[in-house]
């Protein structure tokens, strides 16, 4: 499994945690447990032979309040989650949802083509689809019979 880093404080600590996680997973062979990361938003990263997918749960974030940039293998996610302030004469019983800004920089596990990056937001989940360049794509090798 490729390693990826977040350029954030506690970077080293996170790296150690990740290695520990991987060791534990290898030992138990059990379900992958979500890692504890200190930076919003939490992301899941997956791949298929041609793409890398970065997904983040961003409920209530308008696509226009998102700013996604890519530079080489660094993907930056910035944005703001706004919660409309309710009109006057309102009494809150529960307030668990938070508003605020976020900024996260991810190091991608492989090279990508910066021109072929697509982002889509659906039902509060952001999916960033990054195309792998031909050099890192797996290629089928046919075995010739002599």
């Amino acid at each position, binding site marked *: *499994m*490729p390693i*990826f880093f977040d350029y954030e404080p506690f970077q080293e600590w996170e790296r150690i945690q990740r290695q520990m996680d991987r060791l534990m997973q290898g030992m138990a062979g059990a379900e*992958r447990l*979500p*890692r*504890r*990361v*200190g*930076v*919003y*938003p*939490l*992301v*899941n*990263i*997956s*791949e*298929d032979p041609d793409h*890398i*997918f970065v*997904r983040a*749960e*961003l*409920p*209530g*974030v*308008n696509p226009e309040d998102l700013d996604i940039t890519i530079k080489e293998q660094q993907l930056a996610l910035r944005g703001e*989650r706004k*919660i409309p*302030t*309710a*009109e006057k*004469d*309102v*009494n*809150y*019983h*529960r*307030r*668990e*949802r*938070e*508003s*605020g*800004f*976020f*900024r996260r920089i991810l190091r991608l*596990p492989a090279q990508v083509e910066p021109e072929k990056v697509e982002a889509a*937001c659906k*039902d*509060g*989940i952001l999916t960033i689809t990054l195309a792998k360049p031909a050099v890192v794509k797996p290629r089928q090798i046919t075995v010739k019979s002599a």
Partner: protein
Amino acid sequence: MAEQELKPQVKEEAPTKGERVRPGRVFLPAVDIFETPQALVLVADMPGVAGDAVTLDLKENLLTIYGKVSPPPEKETLLAQEYAIGDYYREFQVGELIDKDKIGATVKNGVLTLTMPKAEKAKPRRIEVKTG
């Protein structure tokens, strides 16, 4: 309101009464509940839940919210997982009298907004104090 930096929240698993028929995990959505003179409004964060995947029920003051999340494509290999994926379920005891026929629900960007208008007799009435 001052700008603040968002902190990631680890999803809390919903307590279960008996085992579920379908495999998978169920989480408690984060909610805001507020009351206006006319209605009780509930806002729940349910990322990954489409409008037609929400089931709402209000029976004898027990409000249940259930949101079904469609699983991610299977042909992908997971490289790193920071958030867990699962459905959302939460129950509330609603003390106020609700006009059940006028409940409105919308889902936008993974956020459910449930507006429950108060029944006529539950609305606050101003009581005039007569002098004289």
